[in-house]
């Protein structure tokens, strides 16, 4: 009998599996689950984008592209980032097209981290940052963002987390699961601290278009002195509802991007060619489609936040992404207990905040990438559930 624990890498075996496995299993036994649990858009990829992909296949565009991705697409990305973030990146040297924002994050960390380097990770946040850091031999240093700070990273928290071993700071804003954003003034405060260091900011801006605040999304790369130390990561999944196409990009100083590209070249070769052709169309002609989707998300956002507050689960206004992060402490249950009991009693699925870090205890994540009718029904059942708990 093989002892696989002796074969598999120690690092891999030490990475904790996703905490919500058991919820998958429970939900799988139920027929009529009303889920608020997914993290991808319900919209279809705009038709013109799908058509561009199909046309590229009909024309036989099925070979590898250059490692960095189609130059035409990199030019469009450069224009797009200049337009949206007022930062300029040279499409020939400072942009890499990756397999989703996910690969960009992974390859960037692999390019930057020497085993033992510390990586500051704000939590609650997307589940991949900690394990990817560990896989690369990095040491995660967690900042627990707090509700009373609207889940932003504060300058004090950043200062306390920095040591002489700190190599990178991951800044995921707008944030999954909290829906938090960092505004220009917030980023300037962090830049003050980072400016004279060798700390690289890995800015995961995948939800940038879904910013529901007075001002549009601001990238830390646009703040004075930050461009040379920031890798700006974004993609097509959330903005253009292209999750399954697997396409993202990394922008940064060519000294870093060239190394990230080297890793990408060996591990991946190039991002999917079909997706790249489709993405060119997306960047050129889908401003209106994106605005329509954003307006619809915004309507749902108001509905879901109001619904949680009316049910007695305090929900601060999320200004980004498509998640509400209500506090469930008023029920006296833990996050996991709340989710388990809600699922069993009312067949409504939400994700325990603890899936995203210990600081998520007391919260649950509810996505609003569902129709208003679906959300209304879910809220009705949640309201009933909370009333029944409090009896």
């Amino acid at each position, binding site marked *: 009998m093989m002892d696989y624990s002796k074969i598999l890498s120690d690092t891999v075996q030490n990475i904790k599996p*996703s905490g*919500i496995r058991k*919820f*998958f299993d429970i*939900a*799988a036994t139920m027929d009529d*689950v009303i*889920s608020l*649990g*997914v*993290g*991808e858009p*319900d919209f279809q990829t705009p038709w013109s984008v799908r058509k561009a992909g199909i046309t590229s296949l009909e024309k036989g565009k099925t070979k590898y592209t250059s490692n960095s991705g189609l130059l035409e697409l990199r030019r469009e990305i450069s224009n797009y980032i200049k337009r949206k973030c007022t930062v300029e990146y040279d499409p020939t040297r400072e942009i890499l097209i990756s397999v989703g924002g996910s690969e960009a994050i992974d390859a960037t960390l692999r390019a930057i981290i020497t085993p033992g380097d510390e990586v500051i990770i704000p939590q609650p946040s*997307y*589940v991949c940052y900690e394990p990817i850091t560990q896989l690369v031999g990095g040491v995660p240093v967690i900042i627990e963002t707090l509700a009373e700070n609207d889940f932003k990273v504060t300058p004090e928290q950043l200062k306390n987390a920095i040591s002489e071993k700190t190599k990178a700071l991951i800044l995921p804003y707008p944030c*999954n699961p909290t829906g938090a954003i960092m505004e220009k003034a917030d980023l300037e405060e962090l830049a003050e601290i980072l400016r004279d260091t060798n700390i690289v900011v890995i800015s995961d801006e995948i939800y940038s278009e879904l910013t529901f605040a007075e001002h549009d999304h601001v990238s830390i790369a646009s703040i004075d002195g930050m461009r040379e130390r920031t890798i700006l990561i974004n993609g097509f999944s959330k903005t253009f509802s292209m999750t399954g196409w697997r396409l993202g990009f990394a922008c940064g100083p060519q000294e870093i991007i060239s190394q990230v590209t080297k890793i990408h070249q060996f591990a991946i070769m190039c991002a999917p060619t079909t997706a790249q052709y489709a993405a060119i169309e997306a960047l050129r002609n889908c401003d209106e489609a994106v605005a329509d989707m954003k*307006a619809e998300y915004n*309507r*749902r956002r*108001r*509905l879901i936040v*109001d619904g949680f507050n009316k049910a007695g689960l305090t929900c601060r206004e999320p200004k980004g992404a498509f998640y509400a992060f209500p506090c469930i402490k008023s029920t006296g249950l833990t996050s996991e207990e709340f989710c388990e009991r809600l699922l069993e009693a009312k067949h409504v*699925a939400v*994700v325990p905040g603890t*899936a*995203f870090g210990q600081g998520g205890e007391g919260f649950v994540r509810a996505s609003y990438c569902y129709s*208003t*009718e679906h959300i*209304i029904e879910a809220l009705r059942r949640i309201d009933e559930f909370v009333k029944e708990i409090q009896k």
Partner: protein
Amino acid sequence: MRNELLKLLSTNARYTVEQLAVILAATPEAVAAEIDALEKQGVICGYKTVIDWEKVDATSVSAIIELNVVPKADLGFEEVAERVASYPEVEAVYLMSGGYDLNVVVKGKNLQEVSRFVARELATIDSVTSTATHFVMRRYKEMDVKLIERDKDDRGTFLL
């Protein structure tokens, strides 16, 4: 608010004023007042439910009738159109460009009833010069609502 409100009501007429107010970031009073005004102005003309009658009563039948009409001197097609529209059997009346003049949608309990209606009430109108009746065999989509199998959400229950 007006356009957004109209779009919301056209997709779901059953939103409560409170729900609309939350979605539009307005007060329920403002929303109620706007709906009131739109009704009075004839912008909102009615609230209907989309029903798949085939599931209730398999024999009921709809037809699309193409009418050719000789328009009247000052009134054009108005008089005929209004007369046709006044019948309860008539669900829709449109003035068309192209090969014929009026498109009329008629609903009846069965094929015979619809045929009788066309023959007795529509074909006999003075200015109607010809009718062509096309029976609806199957409805797939109506008023932007799919009657056939709804799109399934294939995203599963959880995804981080």
